[in-house]
């Protein structure tokens, strides 16, 4: 047996290409294609009176200008509402190009196709649109007041409204010996991958010879779902699914924003390519990405909590106002995730959550890494800290009093999750998680460190925050594994890759299953020509669903290979084993057959095309003349296909702790330590998992201390550049210290849980807690900038912001289930 790959920090197979500059990202394709640019609304809300393209036609290189008037059939209908839900009151989606009304700055109004992007922008700048400007609706307050409505025909701005309740939470709060109320606020941020969106399409017209409409469309898109784009484009262009191929090239980051489909541009580009009979490419520029892609995070939350004197939460009652932007293309996944994942590792006595999802005249809100969890964790963990402060208890001690115990698994929270299935945690050891984070950050030793810092005139604070994350939702993913006659193994799965290293991880799984060298395994993702059935990459599901699917597919292939090898070796299949690219008789390794040869034998041939294939031709040797060359129930080829369709999500968990220092004069916030305890079940590749955690933490820090979407009251995005949207550099991101736990999931054959989003989730919660701890007053609104911290200090001095009582020395917490792990450093 070769070395087991599963669990090893295998170096990525993707990288040789990428470090050499041989990546193939969307704009690296289609060298001769025409370029598209879009005329976008400069107003947050307006009626289009007229579009005049007269001046644009003078531009050298212009090919076409399209407006809504050019669209017909399905293209003239609104884009789909991807995830319908009964709680949606009035689900509005945009048109591919604006039809009469625009509802946010950046909404596409007209499309220009020209020889190159320079000419396309020249022409777009010359198209005159006459707008009757309306009033903007920006922010939760304006949306909920409904003084102005975003969409015509609506009495208010409520897109969706949902109440979920387990027990009688309001009664439980009222009856509890202690209760608190918190008002919490999180601002908008956005995924902001370094490569924006992009679409490139090519139409091959029908050949007159067949007389049938067999034209074919090839679409390349920088997307998180190949099959989703294929289905959506086929529907819009009224083509059969079989006429559309979607190929996803290297994707320069997604983080959620590229799961939305079809974007207006994503149907316009193929439509224009077909209409013009030319290759058309649109590559989103940075400014477009800020105003016209998607954002997330903005929520206002009101929490009422009732608890006993030990900090046990008896009732939790949460109201959420969720800003969903101008349209609802992705349904209400984000607020549903917030509502359910808010519970984290805890088990309140009773829980009620109500959300209203609200239209505003701003860019749409769809999942961004974490997808509503950062907000939910913010609500829950701010509540935990408030409970601890109210009772004068240690913050970890209160958490320990509320976590679900391992012996209570599987634990049914009694709610419906974002996949429409019950919220049942499959596994996890939350008390151990708390112990580990206390140990990693040296929670008990912090009091002494704080005192030492104080003597030096420095202000430091510590915070902790926990999360549980439902990962790997269905409905399914598929895997196809094929052994070629060369012995090379080709693996395909339908979901797409944006840097997660699926090419490596899936190869590790298959290499183990077949016991072949990993270098012989080649993985294709996101190509509908290779795997037509798939859902997509989101919700930390790649390793869980596609990982399981390729393992199952490899096992199918193994069964078949064993049957063929047993016949060839005249041995019992049960006596055979896979070893180093061969199938051999156990205990008699010399008696075996190469997998490539098995592949040759699996496909009986009439024609030899090379030396290897000659062995499978009709006159090549002994044959059983009593049965057909391909036995009944068999298919030619050494390949296996299978699907993993999970019963429900598997739940990963973790805890973060941060130590910060705040400058007493300038109010600058510096992260001194950032610790992560992380449990995503069995680790397939720890190096890749740690990379995911590092990147997630960076986005969590970004969302907590740097990034926001600064809309003014007119709906203009004031910071639509990387100059002003403060994506952190290396100088702003802390070194992350990680401790792994591995609690296997019982819900999939690999025992794995998703790892992609976890790092980002507790960022705002843990940093709010740490800043609060350093400053001695409540922090209920994130992100926080030095300027805002300065203002909070002034308001605190004026008595407008509540103080945080001095935190008890964690030494007093050592008699709880959180042990004092080691001596203070």
């Amino acid at each position, binding site marked *: 047996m070769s070395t087991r790959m599963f669990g090893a920090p295998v170096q990525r197979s993707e990288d040789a290409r990428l470090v050499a500059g041989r990546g193939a990202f969307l704009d690296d394709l289609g060298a001769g294609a025409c370029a598209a640019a879009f005329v976008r609304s400069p107003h947050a809300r307006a009626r289009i009176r007229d579009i005049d393209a007269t001046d644009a036609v003078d531009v050298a290189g212009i090919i076409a200008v399209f407006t809504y008037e050019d669209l017909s059939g399905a293209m003239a209908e609104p884009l789909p509402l991807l995830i319908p839900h009964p709680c949606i009151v009035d689900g509005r989606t945009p048109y591919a190009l604006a039809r009469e009304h625009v509802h946010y700055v950046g909404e596409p109004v007209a499309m220009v196709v020209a020889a190159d992007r*320079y000419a396309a*922008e020249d022409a777009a700048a010359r198209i005159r649109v006459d707008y009757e400007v309306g009033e903007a609706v920006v922010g939760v307050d304006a949306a909920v007041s409904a003084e102005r409505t975003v969409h015509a025909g609506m009495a208010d701005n409520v897109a969706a409204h949902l109440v979920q309740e387990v027990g009688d939470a309001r009664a439980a709060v009222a009856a509890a010996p202690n209760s608190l109320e918190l008002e919490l606020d999180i601002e908008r941020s956005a995924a902001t991958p370094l490569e924006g969106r992009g679409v490139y399409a090519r139409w091959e017209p029908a050949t007159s010879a067949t007389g049938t409409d067999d034209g074919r469309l090839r679409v390349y898109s920088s997307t998180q779902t190949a099959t989703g784009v294929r289905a959506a484009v086929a529907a819009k262009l009224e083509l059969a699914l079989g006429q559309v191929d979607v190929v996803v090239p290297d994707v320069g980051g997604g983080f959620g924003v590229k799961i939305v489909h079809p974007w207006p541009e994503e149907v316009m580009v193929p439509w224009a390519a077909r209409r013009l009979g030319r290759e058309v490419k649109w590559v989103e520029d940075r400014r477009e990405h800020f105003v016209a892609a998607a954002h997330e995070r903005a929520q206002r939350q009101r929490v009422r909590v009732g608890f006993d004197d030990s900090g046990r939460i008896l009732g939790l009652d949460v109201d959420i106002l969720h800003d969903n932007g101008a349209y609802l293309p992705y349904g209400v996944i984000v607020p549903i995730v917030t509502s359910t994942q808010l519970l984290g590792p805890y088990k309140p006595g009773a829980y009620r959550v109500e959300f209203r999802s609200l239209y505003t005249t701003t860019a749409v809100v769809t999942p961004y890494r974490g997808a509503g969890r950062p907000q939910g964790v913010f609500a829950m963990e701010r509540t935990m800290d408030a409970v601890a402060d109210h009772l004068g208890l240690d913050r970890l001690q209160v958490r320990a009093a509320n976590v679900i115990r391992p012996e209570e698994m599987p634990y049914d929270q009694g709610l419906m999750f974002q996949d429409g299935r019950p919220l049942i945690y499959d596994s996890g050891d939350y008390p151990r998680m708390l112990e580990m984070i206390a140990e990693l950050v040296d929670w008990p030793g912090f009091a002494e460190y704080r005192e030492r810092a104080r003597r030096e005139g420095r202000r430091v604070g510590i915070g902790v925050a926990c999360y549980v994350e439902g990962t790997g939702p269905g409905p399914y993913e598929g895997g196809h594994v094929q052994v070629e006659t060369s012995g090379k193994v080709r693996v395909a799965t339908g979901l797409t890759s944006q840097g997660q290293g699926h090419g490596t991880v899936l190869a590790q799984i298959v290499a183990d299953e077949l016991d072949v060298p990993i270098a012989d395994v080649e993985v294709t993702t996101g190509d509908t020509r290779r795997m037509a059935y798939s859902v997509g990459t989101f919700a930390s599901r790649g390793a869980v669903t596609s990982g399981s699917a390729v393992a199952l597919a490899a096992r199918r292939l193994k069964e078949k290979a064993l049957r063929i090898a047993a016949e060839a070796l005249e041995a019992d299949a049960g006596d055979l084993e896979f070893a180093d690219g061969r199938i051999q008789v156990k205990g008699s390794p010399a008696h075996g057959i190469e997998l490539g040869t098995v592949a040759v034998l699996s496909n009986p041939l009439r024609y030899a095309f090379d030396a290897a294939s000659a062995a499978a031709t009709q006159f090549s040797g002994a044959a059983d003349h009593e049965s057909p060359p391909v036995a009944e129930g068999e298919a030619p080829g050494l390949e296996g296909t299978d699907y993993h369709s999970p019963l429900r999500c598997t739940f990963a968990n973790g805890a973060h702790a941060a130590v910060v220092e705040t400058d007493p004069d300038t109010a600058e916030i510096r992260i001194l330590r950032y610790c992560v305890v992380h449990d995503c079940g069995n680790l397939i590749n720890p190096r890749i998992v740690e990379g995911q955690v590092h990147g997630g933490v960076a986005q969590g820090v970004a969302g907590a201390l740097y990034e926001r979407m600064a809309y003014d009251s007119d709906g203009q995005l004031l910071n639509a550049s990387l*100059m002003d949207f403060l994506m952190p550099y290396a100088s702003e991101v802390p070194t992350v210290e990680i401790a792994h736990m591995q609690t296997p999931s019982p819900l999939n054959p690999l025992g794995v849980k998703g790892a992609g989003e976890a790092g980002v989730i507790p960022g705002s919660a843990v940093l709010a807690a740490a800043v609060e701890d350093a400053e001695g007053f409540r922090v209920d609104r994130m992100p926080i*900038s030095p*300027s805002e911290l300065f203002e909070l200090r002034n308001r605190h001095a004026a008595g407008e912001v509540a103080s945080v009582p001095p935190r008890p020395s964690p030494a007093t917490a050592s008699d709880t289930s959180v042990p004092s792990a080691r001596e203070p450093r």
Partner: protein
Amino acid sequence: MKPPPFAYHAPTDLDEAVGLLAEAGDEGKVLAGGQSLIPLLNMRLAAPRVLVDINAVAGLEDIRVDAAGVRVGARVRHAELEADTAAAEAVPLLGQGLRLVAHPVIRNRGTTVGSIAHADPSAEMPAVLALLEGAVEVRGRAGTRTVPAAEFVTGPMETALAPGEIAVAARFPRPRPGTGTAFVETARRNGDYALCGAAAAVTLGADGRITAARCCLISVAPVPLVVDLTDHLAGRTARLGDLDGAAAAAAEQADPEDDIHAGADYRRHLARVLTARALARAAAAAPAAVADTYTGASR
């Protein structure tokens, strides 16, 4: 985000460059490092009809250090000036400001004179020039004139340059003997434009007491805000506590505005904090053989 079309000239002779620029009038722009201009072009926030690239113009490439100070030609990149040891020795504030200009990669291409001519109220190098009471050499069809720093920057992104004129060099005078300088700032991210920045020059007498002090604040006024603090500090030591009054007086002059990164009150507060820090560091850097009044230790 592609630039709009323009005509492009890359003359090798200064008179030719001036001629081309004069011909274009207010539709002409000078391209040197381009690190401020090209983003504006890419965003189509600027649309000059003519671009005169001076990167091949002879005579603009020199850093000259003499008794008066440092003369920096219009083609000199920030990074070159930063690496010039003679210039750093003559005018230490140059290096103290330059290391705060964006990131090294931008400094590899951006020019110091270009940054001054761009006149961003948050930029460091106009403040360095202003604090040192330097000057800009300007060449137009009518010949060369020298504009004192105080008259050069006239508003946010506005200068005394007339259409057709090129800033050909900046002159940074050596500070008076016994003067130390410092530049401190607070930015959201490393390399960002400062929320507020303070440059300071403090001159100490033989007794270690202050004889002159000036500061220049950025990002809190439409132009680099030079404040003479000699009246507040003359005869005093530069202990941090002693500087508070002067720092408050400097901050008093600031007229910051709210923007998406910081409130006006916070910027005014920073003006005070950073002025005090800059004064203290400048005093500590003053090359007098006296007790270190900053730390109290003797050097």
